[in-house]
């Protein structure tokens, strides 16, 4: 409780301090750090997000900036090199002295940055879906937690497609591993026997899929409806879907739902043989609505006619706008004050409905399930109401007792059984 008090006091002090600064007119622009890889293996995904951030900042400046100041983007290139993420984050916070960082893609890059931003009390907006099981005072997670993507997709498999036997295929790294652990526990809770869950991990960029696809087809031998939940990452998807098509696995026989396949990934593929397979996200480019149409138009005008939009871009769109509103509400860019102002921030989603920032630093967002179409876009066939993101999953025994609430409890890893805060820093 003392903690909360000091927090409030410091926020107040910062507020007072900043109003005087604002009054003194801003001779320095407000700096926004963009920490996305522009080279190396992640550049393919992250360059788009860098461009999206530049567009959002340009739009905000055109609309009069922030607190009467220009916003300046400080773009650095961590080059898909995880230690370099930590180095560049430190540079952004200490040398460039940015007020907020938008960046990272993949959990390992985030885990690399976490100690630095917690040490220097920075603020990071992380825009990609991730495995949860983490909560940092200094990070806002605008991507989906497992309960905002994996669990609803699995529900869809169980309820709507009547899948009784699951193949969980993933690339061997932390996101698929943790997600599959959560899903396994969830499926067992839902009455799926352990022997009806087939799990397989392949390396990054795997290309030899024939045996694995044959194994999946053979799962149907006990007459149960088989479904595949894919957390396969990046390039490996191309070989996987090509092999699926070659083995004539239709979505009617064995549906595949993917959590890492979006509009960008499909552009490397001929999708005519994949029609009907699924993906779950919080955003698809094909979502209907004026906000989305406007966003796509602005994006194409900014970046090029052939560019597509995707889920992490929407996450940055929401995150950036919420941050702008929070700064305006707090009247300062001071991290502690902005953090307090972030809680409860609302901003309309591009897919309809309203995203809300929760005290556990996650968003409440709707979950969409789309079917792949022949033109490489997704046909949205299911959309839920807003689902509040959950940092600690309820389906693993160790984390079911944990709760994150930075607003009331001031703790991201609060054990509700022992009623104590396990740790204040995050686990990395």
């Amino acid at each position, binding site marked *: 409780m003392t903690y909360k008090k000091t927090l409030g006091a410091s926020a107040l002090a910062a507020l007072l301090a900043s109003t005087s600064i604002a009054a003194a007119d801003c001779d320095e622009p407000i700096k926004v750090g963009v920490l996305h890889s522009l080279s190396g293996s992640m550049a393919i995904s992250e360059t788009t997000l860098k461009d999206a951030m530049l567009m959002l900042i340009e739009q905000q400046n055109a609309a009069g900036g922030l607190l009467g100041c220009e916003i300046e983007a400080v773009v650095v*290139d961590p080059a898909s090199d*995880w230690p370099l993420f930590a180095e560049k984050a*430190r540079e952004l916070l*200490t040398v460039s002295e940015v007020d907020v960082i938008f960046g990272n893609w993949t959990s390992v890059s985030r885990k690399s940055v976490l100690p630095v931003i917690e040490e220097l009390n920075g603020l990071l907006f992380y825009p990609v879906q991730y*495995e949860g099981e*983490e909560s940092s005072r200094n990070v806002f997670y605008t991507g989906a937690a497992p309960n905002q993507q994996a669990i609803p997709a699995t529900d869809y498999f169980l309820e709507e497609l009547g899948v009784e036997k699951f193949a969980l295929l993933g690339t061997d*790294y932390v996101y698929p591993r943790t997600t599959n652990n959560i899903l396994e526990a969830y499926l067992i809770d839902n009455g799926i026997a352990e022997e009806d869950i087939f799990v397989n991990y392949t390396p990054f960029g795997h290309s030899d899929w024939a045996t694995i696809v044959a194994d999946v087809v053979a799962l149907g031998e006990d007459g149960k409806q088989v479904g595949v939940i894919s957390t396969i990452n990046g390039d490996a998807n191309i070989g996987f879907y090509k092999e699926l098509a070659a083995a004539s696995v239709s979505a009617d026989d064995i549906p595949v739902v993917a959590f890492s396949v979006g509009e960008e990934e499909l552009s490397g593929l001929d999708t005519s043989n994949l029609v009907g397979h699924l993906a779950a996200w919080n955003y698809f480019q094909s979502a209907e609505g004026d906000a989305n149409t406007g966003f796509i138009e602005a994006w194409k005008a900014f970046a090029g006619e052939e560019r597509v939009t995707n889920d992490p871009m929407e996450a940055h769109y929401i995150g950036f706008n919420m941050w702008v509103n929070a700064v305006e509400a707090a009247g300062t860019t001071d991290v502690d004050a902005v953090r307090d102002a972030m809680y409860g921030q609302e901003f309309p989603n591009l897919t309809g409905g309203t995203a809300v920032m929760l005290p556990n630093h996650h968003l409440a967002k709707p979950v969409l399930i789309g079917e792949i179409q022949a033109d490489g876009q997704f046909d949205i066939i299911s959309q839920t109401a807003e689902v509040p993101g959950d940092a600690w999953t309820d389906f693993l025994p160790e984390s079911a007792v944990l709760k994150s609430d930075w607003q009331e409890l001031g703790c991201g890893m609060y054990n509700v059984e*022992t009623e104590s805060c396990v740790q204040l820093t995050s686990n990395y």
Partner: protein
Amino acid sequence: MTNSFLMRNPSTLWFLLGLSLFTIVVTALSDAGVGVMSTSFVKTLGKTLCLCLIAVAMDVVWGYCGILSLGHFAFFGIGGYAVGMWLMYARTEGIVLDSFASQTIPPTPQEVTDAIGNQIFGVVGSSEFPMIWAFSDSLILQLLLVVLVPGVLALLFGWLAFRSRVTGVYLSILTQAMTLALALYLFQNDSGLRGNNGLSGLQNIPGFEDTPQSTISLAFFYASALAVGLGYVLFAWITSGKMGSVIKAIRDNESRVRFLGYHVESYKLFVFTITAVVAAIAGALYYPQAGIINPAEIAPIASIYLAVWVAIGGRGRLYGAVIGAAFVSLLSSWFTGGGAPAIPLGFYTIQWTDWWLVLLGLSFVAVTLYAPKGIGGLFDYLVRKPS
């Protein structure tokens, strides 16, 4: 004796002098002095020193002994992992004990171990302590492992390879395969070293939680400088004198040395193993400064880059390796860090983040073809010392 050795090797003395001067300048510029040098740059310099150390080791094994090892970065990584395991364990133990202290019932030792395991491996969806973490609670043992694991691995690998007379490019390919195998092994979550995530938060040194990073980074900078100095002297000593002559002779004509009655395999094994151990020590100093170690660090390409540094710096001269490593790695971070200005050509703008690797690759071809002695050769030419 050391005195007379240094007297006989003035270049070593000059190097040590330069290193000391460099250390003093950095201290003066850092937060401990006038404070114009940022903590992150001190960290970069500390890391660069570690890279210089492994480059010197690489120079000895390749430039002096003629073994083009594409596996020394694997040893570097093992060193990092070994020290990282203790750093993670000890940091997590502190957190866990704090958290238990707030509970009424004191924890059993098993509960503490379980909680630490859950904290470390929960991130990768597991909570069991694998066997290889058996010594992670002891700093001394883990530091011993920094030296022992790469030493034994290099000894075993070298013994097998040299015994079967695997030489030249075959050995290069074999060492590269070893690196790849290690990297793939570490990539697996089942390896017990957190798979692709690796070990992170290594910059937080247990017991020094309240010490600011500016101080810690300076301490590691000194340690790295000391290690480079000692390593340089060690290798200068090894490569000079009679033993140095035999090693260089093996590089130039292995069969002839064998016919002269020398046990070539023993010499090669010695050089291979000691450079592996030094590489591991460099890694153990590097990763606490980098903050995170993961399998991508060990990928075969890293070891090839190591060879590139040494070649550009100039093989067969220890200072050449230092120059090469420092020059290329700092230049690389300057170019990819957006430090170099883009060149507009009207129809196309050259962004250095895109073109730096092309430039590096081609300059490397040029160095191999036209300047096999590298920058060090140029240096020799300037001080008019025939090599």
